[in-house]
């Protein structure tokens, strides 16, 4: 037990009332932190247990390989799973380079002008816009104006709009965290700005950038509203072959099943949730792996 040094020459072991009270407060605070952590974790555990109990019996190769059906025992999630993988991959392809390059520009190139500040504030605001609004935007611009119809591409571009602010903000943070002393050291040996960014800023920032990108993509996987808005809530009994095909997605399929009256479909929804979680965890694992590889060098 730690005690404070006594200044008046008393021996140890006579803890004052004030010190006892301070220790009590410290212990209370610790208990509070543990309590809330346990609460959050147990709620999560309960959810997963519930979903697992309902969904696991339905989870087999037939479930993964079948298309949706009116008959629960024949219904599967293939089209939704493929649709989600298509949308997320395309979203990553579009949003990742765009977001990271925008972040690099804003952090390392943009002059510290009022315009830059206005742009940065607006990006931060965009991150808080409800996803349904992006859905309306996607419907108006991609689906209608550019005539992309209800395609994977329209969905991916809408999702990209949705997660770009998050990617830009988190990438900016990661880039800003690279010490300026490293940049100056590189300039001092005759590097151009591109060489500094390429060899020092990006490698140091990539773990942070990846974390933000994965969080953003995880959000995109779970988003339903914008996809419903652009018309992905339909019966799709085929997997997309290309970016211009129609599609549906996991959360939409889950929503569809969950909103039916029969209990079997509710269990199918639980099985769908498990598939969604597995996709999510796989992506996270991939990001951890890339980070690990990145920090090895």
């Amino acid at each position, binding site marked *: 037990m730690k005690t404070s040094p006594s200044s008046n020459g008393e021996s140890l072991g006579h803890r004052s009332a004030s010190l006892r009270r301070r220790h009590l407060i410290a212990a209370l605070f610790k208990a509070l932190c543990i309590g809330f952590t346990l609460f959050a974790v147990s709620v999560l555990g309960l959810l997963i247990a519930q979903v697992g109990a309902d969904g696991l019996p339905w989870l087999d190769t037939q479930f993964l390989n079948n298309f949706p059906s009116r008959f629960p025992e024949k219904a599967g999630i293939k089209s939704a799973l493929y649709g989600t993988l298509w949308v997320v991959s395309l979203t990553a392809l579009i949003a990742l380079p765009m977001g990271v390059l925008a972040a690099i520009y804003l952090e390392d190139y943009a002059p*510290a002008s009022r315009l830059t500040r206005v742009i940065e504030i607006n990006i931060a605001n965009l991150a808080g816009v409800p996803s349904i609004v992006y859905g309306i935007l996607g419907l108006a611009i991609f689906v209608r104006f550019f005539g992309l119809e209800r395609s994977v591409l329209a969905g991916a571009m809408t999702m990209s709009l949705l997660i770009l602010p998050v990617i830009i903000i988190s990438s900016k943070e990661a880039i800003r965290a690279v010490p300026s*002393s490293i*940049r*100056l*050291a590189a*300039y*001092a*040996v*005759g590097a151009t700005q591109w060489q500094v960014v390429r060899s*020092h800023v990006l490698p140091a920032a990539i773990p942070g950038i990846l974390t933000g990108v994965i969080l953003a993509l995880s959000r995109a996987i779970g988003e339903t509203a914008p996809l419903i808005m652009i018309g992905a809530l339909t019966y799709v009994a085929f997997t997309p072959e290309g970016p211009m095909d129609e599609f549906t997605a996991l959360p939409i399929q889950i929503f569809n099943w969950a909103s039916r009256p029969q209990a079997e479909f509710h269990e199918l929804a639980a099985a769908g949730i498990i598939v969604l979680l597995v996709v999510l965890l796989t992506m996270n694992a991939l990001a951890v792996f890339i980070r690990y590889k990145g920090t090895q060098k």
Partner: protein
Amino acid sequence: MNTRDDAVLEARDVTIRYGEQAAVKNVNLSIYEKKITAIIGPSGCGKSTLLRSLNRMNDFIEHVTQDGEILYRNTNLYGEGVDPVEVRLHMGMVFQRPNPFPKSIFRNVAWGPTINGLPGDINLRVERALKQAALWNEVKDRLNDSALNLSGGQQQRLCIARALAMEPEVILMDEPCSALDPVSTSRIEDLLFELKQNYTIVIVTHNMQQASRVSDYTAFMENGSLIEYGDTDQVFTRPKQKRTEDYVTGRFG
């Protein structure tokens, strides 16, 4: 002042402002070839700002404006058409805190020559630079280790090697020992005497013993103005200005 020495760098009426605030005021100063020039003065006197103007590192600070010329062998570093990247090939720099790249020891030294496509065998170049920086014997068996595993003093010598690998003409040092312990400091001071054979060195320091030990010329700055500049012996033993005398005898600062 010794006129037999050739001036490599000449500051002419240099004024540097941060916004409205002048940090360096009308400084005229010559840096002589293969000599060590120390710039001393109290904190905030503009000595680091002046040093950074010699390889255009002030370009990275917002709202800095500069008047006057800095001539490098009669070319104005701030003249039209001068590429700051090229300027830095001639003026190496060592910073106040050791700032190695978070990469291997070898890559730290090799990166500059590689990106600039300097000729010759890169392994030899790295070895030569590390030897000149008196670091070779300590790291020759672990060139692929991370530079961040080195001690502070070793890191600073690595940063010196990194600058030397570029074979610049001038090496600018911004209080290179202020973050180091006395043993590391004395190693770097010894190193300076070696480097003087081949390089022109400008060192900013607020350690007056260091300035008097290592330098040939000393410039004393205060509030952005160059108060006195001359042979180190003269500046420390027979200063012409009262304020210089007050400073070097430790009466203030």
